[in-house]
């Protein structure tokens, strides 16, 4: 049984202009101890999918209209926010994108890390402090015993992201959702943070759902990849399969748009880009949502929506192109 199994999730937002179908029928499953990457452009529903799992989206205007989110065999969708509080951080940890603003400026980092421990586990203040210092050591913050009493503004961006990781992992959750944890950091720090996540994952044996739009990060960390476009899953495959044999035109476009320093300079090729941008998801196009930007679009693409289906073991995609070949 998968640790987390999202089936047919639809999260919609009510706006003045109409219903925005941010996530529209997404199936994602994550096994124990697995790293799953969710990739796609900005605005294709990655974050909303992740936030829907713990109901962290603002409701209203957001609403989970359909689907189930099975975590260890238990559906999270009907749970109230109060019931979810017991799962947040304890079972499923969440690492946010912005380490600069996701820490409370008036509380010391120690107080903030200890907060989830005190909330979820019966520990005394002293035990919580000890475990907090231990967590800070694990995320490689030097002089952890002294730094635990410092305020967020006394840390750099990379250090704050380490603190965020310590916060999310303090209760040893079974699943960690990391929403673009490296986007706000520079490249060397990105690599350190990804290494740290990998290290923590192995140490605690937890599953990681990593949301990103950087294909380089995907290739480096993932075991399985889910490609999302306009609120839907368009392709899902093990990482080698996805990079070696991408089948959906969108995935192919994403991979071709990675700069290659080894090839480009010699061959003087231009970096390929996918023209256009993600459609606004109020009244989305009929048929395949990628069709307006797709080089291979056929007449059927604008009429009938392609279904996600298995084309090889563990490799699923949603495109009419596969039917023809």
């Amino acid at each position, binding site marked *: 049984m998968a640790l987390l199994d999202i089936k047919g999730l639809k999260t919609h937002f009510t706006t003045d202009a109409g219903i925005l179908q941010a996530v529209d029928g997404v199936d994602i499953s994550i096994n124990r101890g697995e790293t799953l990457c969710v990739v796609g452009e900005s605005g294709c529903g990655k974050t909303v999918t992740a936030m829907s799992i713990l109901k962290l989206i603002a409701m209203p205007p957001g609403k989970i209209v359909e689907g189930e989110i099975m975590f260890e065999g238990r559906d999270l969708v009907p749970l109230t926010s109060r019931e979810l509080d017991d799962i947040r951080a*304890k079972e499923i940890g969440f690492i946010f994108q912005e380490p600069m603003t996701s820490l409370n400026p008036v509380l010391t980092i120690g107080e903030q890390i200890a907060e989830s421990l005190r*909330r979820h586990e019966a520990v005394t203040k002293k035990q919580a402090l000890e475990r907090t210092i231990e967590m800070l050591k694990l995320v490689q913050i030097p002089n952890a015993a002294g730094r635990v009493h410092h305020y967020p503004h006394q840390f750099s961006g990379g250090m704050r992201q380490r603190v965020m990781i310590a916060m999310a992992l303090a209760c040893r959750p079974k699943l960690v959702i990391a929403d673009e944890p490296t986007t706000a950091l520079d490249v060397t720090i990105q690599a350190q943070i990804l290494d740290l996540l990998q290290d923590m994952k192995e140490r605690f044996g937890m599953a990681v759902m990593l949301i990103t739009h950087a294909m380089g990060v995907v290739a480096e960390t993932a075991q399985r990849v889910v490609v999302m476009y306009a609120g839907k899953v368009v392709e899902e495959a093990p990482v080698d399969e996805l990079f070696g044999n991408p089948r959906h035109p969108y995935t192919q476009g994403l991979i071709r748009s990675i700069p290659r320093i080894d090839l480009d300079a010699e061959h003087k090729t231009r970096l390929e880009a996918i023209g256009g941008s993600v459609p606004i998801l109020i009244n989305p196009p009929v048929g395949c949502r990628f069709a307006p930007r797709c080089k291979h679009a056929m007449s059927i693409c604008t009429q009938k929506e392609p279904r996600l289906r298995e084309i090889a073991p563990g490799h699923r995609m949603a495109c009419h192109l596969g039917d023809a070949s």
Partner: protein
Amino acid sequence: MAGLTLASPSAERRGYSPLRETWRRYRRHKPAVVSAVLLLLLIAAVVIGPFIWRVSISDIDVVAGLQGPSLAHPFGTDDLGQDLLARMIYGGRISLAVGLAAMLVSVFVGTLIGALAGMSRGALGYALMWLTDLFLSLPQLPLLLMLIYLFRDGLKAVFGPEGGIFILIVLVIGGLRWMPVARLVRAQFLSLREKEFVEAARALGASPVRQVVRHILPNALGPVIIAGTIDVAAAIIAESTLSFLGLGFPPDTPTWGRILYDAKDFLDIGPHWALFPGGAIFIAVVAINFIGDGLRDALDARKVI
């Protein structure tokens, strides 16, 4: 480790305690330290004063009326020959207590209403702000008079003449001064509740009450402290207005405001009579304002001092 040296070398050396750290930061604000000493002296004077200066506040000696400061009467006497030092000490108790208690009432009510309005996403928020605007637009003095007329006798019967009036005045002054605090708090909450760190707290399983009390409120406290210190000053002055209109404490009970108003007709022949209560109110108000300033700086973790 630039951050380490920048932060707080003293905290590193002696082990950490939030209280000590706050005190270290408070000490950097010199006017606030001087003000704290002054206010403590004032409070000590009005609390211990009657045990040292044992002159009665109501001994009338018309012959010795309107005398300037002397050894027998260090602050001089009023038109009835009553000793001003004794009356200042007694009045200070009431004035300071009214000021602080009314501030607590207005800050508490204002924070509660502002927080509810700021967190509500529906009709409640609008309703509470209409209420705030309504209170702001009420003519306060007639309302004060009416409330005091209505409730004075009832409270006097339950808590005694002075206790009853004290409670009534504190509630009425505090109850009519919470609106600016409510607006401040609401405005802070509206922006703070959308911050990422609140979302992060939610992702850690913090209940809505905990999100407010632990994560949002401390971030909104700076302006509230300042508003609170201004309220103390305003309450001391409002009490003197009420006393002047004959609606505060009974006329024979001295408060700083009452003494000041009694003195106003004798400014040309007995200026000392007005100078002492005026000076006391001035010192208390300025000191409390500086203390608020220092407290805000000391409690704001973002500010490096």
